[in-house]
């Protein structure tokens, strides 16, 4: 069943008087029980998509979409109150900077208990409820692998090590028992052992609790170890999306190919001491976005037609937007 269906999401922000499309016709479909990876370079708008989904964007940015539904309910026309309620029940976000996204003046315990939905509390009196909340909080911490719950619950965010706080964020996300967890770059700047712990934790949550995960990252290794479906984002445009294994075997879009090639561990045929491949140039700034396909200036296969935005095409369950996809060559 389709949980989240986003079609042609466009977000315009006002930068020095110009309306600039930070997101340009982004498509994203998340199914139930799926781990969906959203990949892109830094600055490609991954975090903005996340914020657009949960409605945490500044109100003066313009958001338009052909379709943005959550289990059939339209998120864009919904009242703010209803939308918050829906997000509180069904969607949780693990933010990129755990420490910044926690209230610095409240203990972690208070903030975790705030996320426990009232419907999970069975007892009547408030002291019983508080006790029950405490118990739920402790068991949540144990589930994400924090053993010293007492110290953790009564600490303030700045007093806790960053890997613990990342686990704590996961506990917070799980607390409301959502259908979808959006993990925005949860392994940012972590060493391998902690990263593995976090990734295992997320996969386990996906399997045991049947929660979908939208895994936003640029870490291809992490993605390939857990995700089943991948959407590639470049500069605010969805470039290609499809089953991860198929995508790895044969990418249609030049950018996806370049992205996969840039990760050495993905290429078994890479000879020793050969130069690593990478695309020329860097991702353009918001002020100097190319028209049409935004990869244009960097694309090895670009031709004149590329100044017109290619429409999204579909081969089975595999979507791509390119005038000159790679599979055409092989014919």
């Amino acid at each position, binding site marked *: 069943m389709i949980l989240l269906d986003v079609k042609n999401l466009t977000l315009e922000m006002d930068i020095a008087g110009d309306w600039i499309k930070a997101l340009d016709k982004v498509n994203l479909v998340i199914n139930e029980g799926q781990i969906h990876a959203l990949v892109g370079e830094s600055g490609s708008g991954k975090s903005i998509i996340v*914020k657009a989904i*949960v*409605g*945490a964007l*500044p109100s003066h940015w313009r958001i338009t979409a052909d379709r943005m539904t959550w289990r059939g309910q339209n998120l864009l026309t919904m009242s703010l*109150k209803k939308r*918050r*309620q*829906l*997000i*509180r*029940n069904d*969607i*949780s*976000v693990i*933010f990129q*900077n755990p420490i*910044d*996204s*926690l*209230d*610095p*003046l*409240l*203990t972690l315990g208070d903030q975790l208990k*705030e*996320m426990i939905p009232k419907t999970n509390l069975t007892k009547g009196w408030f002291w019983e409820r508080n006790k029950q909340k405490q118990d739920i909080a402790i068991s949540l911490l144990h589930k994400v692998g*924090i*053993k*010293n719950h007492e*110290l*953790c619950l009564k*600490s*303030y965010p*700045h*007093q*806790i*090590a960053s890997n*613990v706080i990342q686990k704590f964020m996961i506990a*917070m996300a799980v607390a*409301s028992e959502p259908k979808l967890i959006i993990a925005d770059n949860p392994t940012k700047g972590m060493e391998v052992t902690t990263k593995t712990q976090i990734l295992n934790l997320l996969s386990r949550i996906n399997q045991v609790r049947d929660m979908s995960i939208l895994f936003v990252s640029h870490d291809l290794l992490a993605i390939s170890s857990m995700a089943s479906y991948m959407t590639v984002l470049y500069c605010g445009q969805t470039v290609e999306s499809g089953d991860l294994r198929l995508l790895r075997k044969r990418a249609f879009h030049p950018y996806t190919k370049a992205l996969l090639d840039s990760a050495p561990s993905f290429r078994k045929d890479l000879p020793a001491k050969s130069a690593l491949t990478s695309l020329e140039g860097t991702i353009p700034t918001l002020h100097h976005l190319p028209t049409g396909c935004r990869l244009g200036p960097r694309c090895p296969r670009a031709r004149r037609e590329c100044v017109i935005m290619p429409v999204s095409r579909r081969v089975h369950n595999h979507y791509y937007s390119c005038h000159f996809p790679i599979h055409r060559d092989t014919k």
Partner: protein
Amino acid sequence: MLNILLRYTNLIIITLFILSLLSFALAYLFPGDPIEIMTGLKLEELQKLQNQSVNIGYDPEGGVLSQYGHYMSELFSGNWGVSFNSGQPLYEEIMQSLPASIELSAYALTISLILGLPLGFIAALRHHKLPDYTLLSFSVVGYSIPVFWLALILILVFSLHFGWLPLSGRLSLIFDVPNKTGFILIDILMSDIDNKHAVLLDALRHLILPTLSIAIVTTTLILRITRRSVIETLNSEFIQAAYARGLTTRQVLVRHGIRNALIPILPLLAMQFPTLLTNAMIVETIFSWPGIGSWLIQAIYQQDYSAIQAGMLAVSVFVVLFTMSIDMLLRLTDPKRKKVERGTI
């Protein structure tokens, strides 16, 4: 905790020590003999007292250090000398006028807090909308008006033109309230005079104009500080995150917004206190309010050096103690600055 207390005590003691040095130095900087300025007595009178074998500890031959030591011991024993002009002991005069000033500033500060904080919140919550612009333009106007001019205008309109409120003073001359604490409202409530109610009403009527003229400026200040801080807090990441977690606007504001917005405001408010006191001094002079401000300005007019020296010391000590203790209180209660205790979790 103890560490912080010790550090602040240390800071206060050092600051007060420097203040006492400055005040001591004033005696040498003012024209006239230092001993005259410190005691408020003329040299001949001192000589006379010395001859009458009254031990006043006057030793013109002693070094500066022993003079300073003596000065300090007299300060602490409450012997601050006498005024050149009135011949009254300065300690008593200051202890009578300082409470009047504190009272006036306290009421003004209370009113500005009651008005300024909510208005600042309203402006920030309606950022870039009509209420924000309206409040902001009012605050710019209020902030730009000089206090003395505002006080005069208020007198002109409400006392002279309409005749609604009294022109000056703390209390109508027909009433006589025994002076106990120096705070007029408390004195009235504590005294057992007839028609207490009428006296209280009269005191309040006298309070309105001076309080208002100080409060308007301070309110605009507080409004602007609050507005800025609230806007910054609301734009911070954890507020956005709280929204993204599906909390309602009210929950976000009450649980996360207010506390975080207030924490950076309070030290700034404490820093506004000297400005407030300065404004109060000016307003006191205009309304002939018997506070430390008008008393000091009177002393300056009359070149009453001993009074200036003692008055400045008293006011500055009061300001230092007040601001530092607020600072310390905030430092002790701010969880963000709690010592990081990283245990293995």
